[in-house]
C-alpha cells in the first residue's frame, strides 16, 4: 500500500520550492502588523526552504523503509534458496547411499 510519507513529502517539496522561488523573485511585503520591524527578506524564502527540507526528509524516510523491506526480502530469499540447496544436497546424498547399497532397502 502507498506509504503516506511519499505524498506528504512530495507535496511539501513542491510547495516549498515554489514558495522559496516566488519569495526570492519578489521583494519582502510590507507587513501591516509588524509595524516598525522591517523584514530583510521575503518570508516565503526561509519558510519555503524549511518546507522543502521537511518534504525531502519525509521522502527519504519512505525510501529508506522501502530499501529496508527490499533488503529483508532479498535476505529471506537467500536463506530460502540456501535451505533449498542444502535440502537438495541432503536428498542427493541419501539417494546416493540408497543406490550404492541397494541391499539395505531390499532387506525390508
Amino acid at each position, binding site marked *: 500500500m*502507498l506509504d503516506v510519507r511519499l505524498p506528504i513529502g512530495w507535496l511539501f517539496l513542491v510547495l516549498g520550492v515554489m514558495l522559496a522561488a516566488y519569495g526570492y523573485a519578489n521583494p519582502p511585503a510590507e*507587513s501591516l502588523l*509588524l509595524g516598525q520591524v522591517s523584514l530583510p527578506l521575503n518570508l516565503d524564502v526561509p519558510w519555503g526552504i524549511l518546507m522543502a527540507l521537511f518534504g525531502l526528509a519525509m521522502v527519504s524516510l519512505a525510501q529508506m523503509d522501502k530499501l529496508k523491506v527490499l533488503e529483508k526480502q532479498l535476505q529471506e530469499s537467500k536463506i530460502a534458496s540456501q535451505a533449498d540447496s542444502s535440502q537438495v544436497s541432503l536428498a542427493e546424498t541419501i539417494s546416493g547411499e540408497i543406490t550404492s547399497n541397494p541391499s539395505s532397502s531390499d532387506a525390508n
Partner: protein
Amino acid sequence: MKTGLVTAQPIDYAVILIYFIFVLGVGFKLKKNMKSSDDFLLAGHRIPSWVTGLAFLSANLGAIEVMGMAANAAQYGIMTCHFYWLGAIPAMVFLAVFMMPFYYKSKIRSVPEYLRKRFNEPTRALNAISFAVMTVLMSGINLYAMAIVFKLLLGWDMNGSIAVAALVVLAYTITGGLTSSIYNEVLQFFLIVFGLLPVSILGLLRFGSWSAICDRFENPGFAHLWKEIGTIHNPMGVDMIGLIGGLGFVLSFGYWCTDFLVIQRALAAEDLRGARMTPIIAAFPKILFPVLTVLPGLFAIILIPKLGSNNDDLSFNMAIPYLLAVMYPNGLFGLGITALLASFMSGMAGNVTAFNTVWTYDIYQSYIAKNKSDAHYLWMGKLATAIGIIISVGTCYLCMNFKSIMDYMQLIFTFFNAPLFATFLLGMFFRRTSPWGAFYGLLGGTLAAVVHYILTLQHKLNYQSEMAGNFHRSVVAWTVCLILTITISYLTKPKAVEELRGLVWGVDEKGGDVAAKTSVFASPGFFGVILLALTAYLNYLFF
C-alpha cells in the same frame, strides 16, 4: 467576482491547486486496495500507529477547532487552553490506558457494535441512529465555516466553494475510503502546522515575550488559567463545577473516549499496542496545539481592537483568517488558506467516513439487509459516503440559520456524548450494569439534556454564558444517565459473566492478556504519566 479582504495572486491559487491534485491523487492511488467493505470502511487494520495517532488528532482538527479555539482565545483569553490541558489530555490518556483494550480486543467495527455486544440491540440502535444524525449535522458545520471564510477573505461565491469542496471530499473518500480519509488527515496535520506556525512566530517576534503580551491585555484575567475560577466573574463566566465537572470530566471524556469519529482512527491500527498508542501519540502534539490556535487568538485581540464587533468581517471566528490576511505575504498566504481549506475538508471527510461505517454496519447490515455479500456492503458503504456528503451540504445550509456555530456544536455534544459516557463508564467498569439499564439510562440522559435546554431557552435556568450552560447541561445529562442506569440495572437481569468476557474490566478473556508482556517504559501507561505531568506543569506555569 466580488473582492474580499485580500487580493490573492496566482501563486496563492497555485498552492491550492497543487494541494487538490495531491489529495485526489492519494484517493486514486489507494483505489486498487479497496477490495472489501473492511478495506473501505475500516482501513483493513493495517495502518502504522504514528499515522493513526496523527489522524486521531486531525479528525478533531476541523474548522471548529482551528477557528473556534482562536475565537475563544480572543473572547476569553488563555482560559481557552482548558479545552486542551483539562478537556483533552486526561481523557486521551484514560482512553489509551483503560478503554482501548476493550474496544480493540472485542473486535468491534464501530462503537455502537460494542454496545450490542455488551448490552443489547436496542441500545446499539439508539446509539447508531443518534450518532449518524450527529455526524451529518457536524460535517455541515465544516462546509459552512469554509464557505464563509472564503467569501470574506477572497470574495468567493459561497455556493461555488461549497460545491467544489464537497466534490473533492466525495472524490477522495469514495475512491480510497477510510484509508484515504486518514492519509489526508495526516497531510492536513502538517499543512496546519506549516500554515499557521508563522503567525505565532511573527507575533512572538513582534511582542518579544509572554509578559509583554500579558501587559497588553485589557482584561488581566486573560493571562490566567485558574486565578479567577473561584467565582463566575472570570472571562469565560464558568464556575468550578462547570469547568471541572462539565468540561474536564463529562464533555471531554464523553468526546474522546466514546465518539466513534476518533475511536475509528485508533481501531484502524495494525495491533493492540498500536491502537493504545494512537491517543498517546496524538496527545503529545495536542499539548502544544495552543501555540497554533490560542496564541494567534490572543494576538488578534491585541492587534485588532475592533475584533468581536457585530460586523461579520470582524467576528471572533475571523481571528485566524484575518491574521493570515494582514501578516502573510502572497505565497505564504496561499499556504495558510490551503491549511484552513484542508482542515475544513478533512473535518468533513472524518465525519462522513464515520457516518458511512455506522450506517452500513450498524443500521443497514443489522436491520435492513442482513446476510448479503461483502461486495454488496462495499457498494452500500460507497453509496452512504455519497449520501452523507449530500446531507452535509444540506445541513451546511441549515447551519447558516444559527447565530453561533460553536454553541451549536457544544449543544449537540451535551445531548449525545455526555450521557453516552456514563453508559460506557458503567458498561466497561461495572459488571452489574444490565442491558435494559443501559438503554433506559441513555435515553433518559439524552432527554434530560433536552429538557434542560428547553428550560434554559425559557430562561427558567440562567447561566452567565452559553458555554457555562452547556457545561452544566452535560453534568446533568451524565448524572441522570448514571443514576437511571444503576437503578434500572438493579431491577433488571444482568448478562451472564460468560457473555462479558473481553468486554468488561475484571472479566478476563480466555488466554490472558498478551500486551502485558511489553516493558513498562514502552507501555501506554508510562507515556500517560509523562503526559499528565507535562499538563500539570503547564497548568502551574500559566496559573
